[in-house]
């Protein structure tokens, strides 16, 4: 049985020859992927769009993906890539249109209920380069292994290790003296 994965055709089917069931995957994984995307793009509306785009991509390519486990990996990678594109578009818009905030910015009070400690940490993470942010989110929120992160980001395991190490070092520098 494929743990945590919705497949059509019952629970005991083998991975091969099983068509992926996009609606079932959507029902099972959408929320978690939105949560992951929020850590990457910082606002819920963008995160939902990013995840929706990932599912559209999966729907488009489902004929080529026969392994439901691989479909989840595909979605994860797709969310990271779409999030990166979203941030890039946001940066371009700011540069050329002088838009101070993203079009669909989170409400101003969105972080009001977060503890100050958490706000400081999240603010520090946002100052890291995108790749380091992605590695830290996949490692410390998604709890992926180095190999899984490497696959999701299309980089080597060594690069995952070094990006994680640099990211954490920078966080230590930024937050090391911060009050807890």
């Amino acid at each position, binding site marked *: 049985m494929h743990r945590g994965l919705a497949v059509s055709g019952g629970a005991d089917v083998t991975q091969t020859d099983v068509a992926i069931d996009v609606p079932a995957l*959507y*029902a099972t994984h959408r929320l978690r992927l939105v949560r992951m995307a929020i*850590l990457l793009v910082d606002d819920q509306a963008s995160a939902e*769009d990013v995840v929706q785009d990932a599912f559209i991509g999966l729907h*488009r390519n489902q004929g080529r993906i026969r392994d439901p486990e691989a479909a989840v990996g595909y979605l994860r990678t797709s969310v990271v890539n779409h999030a990166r594109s979203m941030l890039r578009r946001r940066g371009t818009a700011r540069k050329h249109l002088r838009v101070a905030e993203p079009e669909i910015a989170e409400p101003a009070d969105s972080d009001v209920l977060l503890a100050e*400690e958490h706000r400081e940490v999240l603010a520090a*993470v946002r100052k890291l380069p995108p790749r380091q942010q992605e590695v830290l989110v996949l490692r410390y929120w998604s709890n992926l292994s180095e190999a899984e992160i490497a696959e999701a980001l299309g980089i080597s395991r060594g690069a995952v290790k070094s990006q994680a190490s640099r990211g954490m070092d920078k966080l230590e520098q930024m937050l090391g003296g911060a009050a807890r």
Partner: protein
Amino acid sequence: MSRDMEDRLRAAFDAKTNRVTGALLRPADPPQDDDVPSDGTVTSIHRRHRWIAPLLAAAAVIAVAAGTTAVVTTAAGDHSHPGNTQSPTPTPTTPSATPSPTVAPSTTPVAGGAPPSGTSTGSTSAAPPVTKKLTVQGVTLDVPTNWDFAALDNRCLTINGLPPDPVVPSRHCQLEISVISASQAASGGFNPDKPYVIGDGNMCGSGGTAAQSVKTVLATNAMVGGQPAEYRSFIGACFKGTWEQWTVPTAPGVIITRSYADPATEQAALYAVTNAQLPGPRSQLRLSDRGIIRSVTSEADGARIELDRVTRLEQGGNSNTNPATYSYVLPANLQIRAATSDLEPLSVQQLIQLANGQTVDGITPPLSTLGATLTTDGTTVTGMDLFVI
């Protein structure tokens, strides 16, 4: 890198993401064939339909407001609506003290699964693949066929009837249902802002770090079984993930708790809650309310008070993000508990004087700085506490 920094990072990520539950996601469907343009260009259907969610939300608000303002004419302006939400001639019923769950055959199978298009805040919710009906204390829910009453606990629905966790009984519950009569609410205290609603129970104990860790992360209005309800979600150090709770505040009060918002069962839970069939008839008034006093006007049989609903946050303080204002008639003989200079309760007449700008027993206007907590028996206001906002 230090272990401490890793822990801080995990905690911050969890805090940020745990606030987002399925209830908060905008309704959306999984991609269909017609969402993919023939040229292969990826276009987000979500983005194209971004206007739908606000429109639905606005429609729901309008529907609720229309339904309530039609029942009672208030002395105040058009912003307010009465504390009652249903029939003007209620006959509250008291649920059985010993609930007797029943099981009915399945209904509404939907082949191939369904998208998580439901929200707990009032929109409709798609049916899970196959459901059956379970009834507890008069509340009937459409749940997945493998959900059943937990062994030894007929308020808790678990997958395959798994017994409640011996340490934290609610931990295995996909949903836990409680029905509270008006008299039970009056004797135990009824507070939709609290994780346990009834009484002073605290999910993480009554003191210490764990107790202080409980925080309200979301407070919104919702619809449960077609009835106005209040939705709260909480996080805390002594339970996993997010604790969700829907409370129908009219009598008999219905409290549905989802003590661990497991994403895997999100759709089924929301469908069950949204489409619940509630015991009725419903009472005229909400069993409790808490808000800023917006107006007090004299009436022949006492006074009418307009309460701008505020949420008491578990981390302390009040949040006034709820736009609802409810109207109540205070009986002329009501004794209002307040921190007066003579330690005596205020009378309704004194409250009217306060509203008219007079200082009464050490309590000073303006009214907008004062809040009140009301308790009712479903038809009449039976208690009121005054506090300073």
